[in-house]
């Protein structure tokens, strides 16, 4: 797949030439120059950042005073809740929720005169103080953005930006000052554990692969981020694709691989475009391909697209898919590092894992291992989403507590509602209740409480979330995504979903809870891959911490969170009803009757016919007077 015009680049044939090129780029950049950075991440995209970018382009084009001012569209800045985000350098003025209409005044006031537009600044939710710079915004304060931070300075379509922030220095160090075994040692010292969910020590994986028999080896980047609610890999690949590439080249050198593959999820077209562009640019500069920078090392990377299957993220299924077959896992008595893609030794790592490699090589494993806990070193990028005020992507050191993430960084629960649980680890993980909020985030600690780190999805739930419904949701996901090969997984997830549906629709029996646990057990024990192997976690963890909620559904046919529709009753409060008739208009089954109050007529309070009501909730949504009660 070709993108746009051919990129004419000067091939660099030595580390010295690379440094020279880097200095050239830096010399053309004035540190005092005004740069308007607009976040082009997917969250901001949905909030309409393109219109903001267009507005800036227009105003810069039309103004005679535009020299020395440049516009940079970057990858995700992380604070997705407040997009579109605009950061003005060099002062790092942080404007949030920017609309296209704000742009002319941003230009004329802030950029030209240095006047701050207060209403665009972030307002502290407690003190009301308006905060000027990005680093002082509470959302960013407790983060440690050693991997994700560069997104704000890089236009992902320009390799020069990556070079300007020091990119590919690690590669030079690895290729010219280190031996492969030393690189592996450094990664082992850092104790970098897989960021995709497995948490397996990358250094040990690389070592086994290096030692495996065979001249042809492969490295693979797993960008098939399938956990619903997780979009860290997407944002890394879209916003800083070179950091991932650089990690892969270093890893390939350490292992002895000459070819690499990036397996990108089908649902991420922008990530696909940006990584392809990055590869072409790297090739153009001679950072990929034959005899990289005259080091004698050949390595190139190819793209493989996922087909829309969650199980495609499972390592042996992914490998099958790259080879041109369905994404069906295979037995792993023989590990991928010995026999993987086309039966050759293969090292498969996640996007974020690869992105950590350059910083480990540059700053050393010892430095890296100072961050984090005993068992979990470094930082982790989480997608903090759901019922939380500051939704977005956060990068924190391992060992920070859930409470700090959700409250200090996340700003707590919106609308004053009560925290109920936080779900981590996606469909393989579990729900963690309030009593465990002071748990330090760490691979092993999360597993101990019945959840797991997973890829980094962190979904916050409040009192209006039904935990039985959450379990049912995950089971529905898993049964749809199961490849279907193993009886235990295919039938197990199906039957667990069936039982959960019975419970949420008011037909549950107490013995179903034991049956769910048994089904969970056999699905996990008897299935081939980790999809089946971890499938019961959402059910088992919600049963562990929220059993009363299940019992309420079964014994009293009640859904305390008012989510399970079959157990709800909608009722219009006659004393509050203003007889406006909106609800009747919104009702899809004509279940609401009454008479509108007009200037001439009295009106009759509206009533819902329970027989016709399908509990869609449209009346509740459309009532502006809170006259509808949900029981």
């Amino acid at each position, binding site marked *: 797949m070709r993108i746009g015009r051919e990129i004419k680049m000067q091939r660099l044939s030595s580390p010295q030439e690379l440094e020279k090129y880097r200095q050239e780029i830096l010399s053309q950049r004035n540190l005092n120059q005004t740069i308007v950075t607009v976040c082009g991440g997917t969250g901001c995209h949905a909030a309409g950042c393109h219109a903001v970018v267009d507005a800036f382009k227009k105003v810069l084009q039309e103004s005679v005073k535009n020299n020395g001012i440049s516009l940079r569209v970057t990858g995700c800045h992380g604070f997705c809740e407040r997009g579109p985000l605009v950061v003005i350098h060099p002062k790092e003025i942080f404007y949030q929720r920017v609309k296209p209409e704000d742009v002319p005044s941003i230009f004329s006031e802030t950029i030209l005169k240095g006047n701050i537009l207060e209403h665009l600044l972030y307002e502290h939710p407690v003190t009301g103080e308006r905060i000027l710079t990005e680093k002082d915004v509470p959302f960013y304060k407790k983060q440690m953005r050693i991997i994700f931070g560069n997104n704000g300075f890089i236009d992902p379509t320009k390799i020069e930006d990556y070079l300007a922030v020091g990119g590919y220095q690690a590669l030079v160090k690895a290729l010219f000052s280190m031996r492969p075994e030393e690189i592996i040692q450094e990664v082992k010292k850092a104790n970098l554990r897989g960021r995709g969910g497995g948490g397996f020590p990358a250094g040990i994986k690389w070592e086994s692969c290096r030692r495996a028999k065979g001249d042809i080896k492969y490295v693979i980047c797993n960008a098939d981020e399938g956990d619903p609610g997780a979009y860290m890999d997407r944002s890394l690949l879209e916003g800083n694709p070179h950091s991932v590439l650089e990690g892969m080249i270093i890893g390939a050198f350490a292992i002895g691989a000459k070819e690499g593959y990036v397996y990108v999820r089908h649902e991420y077209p922008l990530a696909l475009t940006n990584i392809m562009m990055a590869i072409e640019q790297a090739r153009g500069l001679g950072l990929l391909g034959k005899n990289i920078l005259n080091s004698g090392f050949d390595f190139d990377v190819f793209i493989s697209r996922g087909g829309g299957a969650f199980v495609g993220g499972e390592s042996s299924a992914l490998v099958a898919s790259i080879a041109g077959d369905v994404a069906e896992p295979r*037995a792993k008595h023989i590990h991928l590092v010995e026999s993987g893609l086309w039966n050759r030794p293969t090292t498969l790592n996640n996007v974020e894992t690869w992105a950590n490699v350059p910083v480990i090589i540059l700053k050393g494993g010892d430095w890296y291992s100072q961050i984090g806990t005993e068992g979990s070193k470094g930082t982790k990028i989480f997608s903090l989403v759901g019922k939380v005020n500051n939704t977005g992507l956060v990068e924190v050191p391992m060992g920070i507590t859930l409470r700090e993430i959700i409250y200090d960084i996340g700003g707590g629960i919106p609308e004053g509602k009560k925290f109920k649980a936080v779900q981590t680890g996606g469909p393989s993980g579990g729900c963690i209740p309030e009593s465990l909020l002071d748990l330090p985030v760490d691979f092993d600690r999360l597993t101990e409480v019945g959840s797991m780190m997973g890829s980094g999805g962190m979904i916050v739930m409040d009192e209006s979330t039904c935990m039985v419904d959450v379990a049912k949701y995950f089971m529905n996901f898993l049964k749809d995504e199961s490849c279907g090969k*193993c*009886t235990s997984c295919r039938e197990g997830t199906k039957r667990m979903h069936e039982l959960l549906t019975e419970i949420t629709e008011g037909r549950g029996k107490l013995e179903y809870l034991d049956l769910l646990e048994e089904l969970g057990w*056999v699905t996990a024990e008897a299935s081939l891959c980790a999809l089946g192997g971890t499938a019961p976690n959402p059910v088992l963890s919600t049963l562990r911490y929220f059993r009363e909620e299940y019992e309420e559904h079964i014994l009293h046919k009640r859904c305390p969170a008012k989510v399970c529709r079959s157990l709800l009753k909608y009722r219009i409060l006659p004393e509050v009803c203003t007889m406006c008739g909106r609800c009747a208009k919104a009702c899809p089954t004509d279940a609401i009757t009454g008479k509108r109050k007009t200037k001439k007529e009295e009106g009759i309070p509206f009533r819902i016919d329970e027989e016709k009501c399908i509990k869609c909730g449209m009346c509740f949504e459309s009532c502006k007077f809170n006259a509808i009660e949900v029981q």
Partner: protein
Amino acid sequence: MISFTIDGQMVEGKKGQNVLEVALDAGFDIPHLCYNENVKPYGACRLCLVEVSRKGRSKLTTSCNYPVLEGIEVFTATDKVLRARKMVMELLLAMCPGSPLLQRMAKEMGLNEVRFKKEDKDCILCGLCARVCEEIVGAHAIQFAFRGDRREVVPPFQGEATNCIACGACVIVCPVNVIGMKEEGDERTITRWKRTLKMKQCKICGNYFAPWYQLEKIREKANLPKDFFDVCYTCRS
């Protein structure tokens, strides 16, 4: 030769063999449905589970695709194994409650009750038919399609299996006998794949011995003369 133990008993296997085949040869009774020695092991049914202890670590695994390795300890009937097998059988029986084979196997395992809503499927999704058609016959007439609980073995586009040569291999290999083959006059039908082919008549004995289409395919592939199959196998010998 590779030596290892099964339930404490010493056994030997050759490199490349799997635990199940060595166990079955040695007289151990491990239930299985999707395993057939003539095709590559697949590991779909999950009935042949055993516990394997290796280098101090023990895990539950299917025995049909676990390689024989020096010094491993295999256990075919621990509590864990029996419990897992029983539940897998329960899930299978809930899928295909009408299958006599499954009913018999369930009884042998002591499974008397199916606690799930019974469906009325007939195919157990072992894949033997597709695997035989692909690996041994090479007709590529049927294969797995779809995913999850929509998974099934069908001809492409679910119509008639137009590559099928009606050899009947799938009919024979199916453990639950749900494919079906019948011959009426000069026609042979493989019921499940809706494939009816006209049979060729022997020039000597006059019997309808094989489908035209099948014989033509074999003739082409093996580069045989045009009249090679004018006489049936019996008459030729």
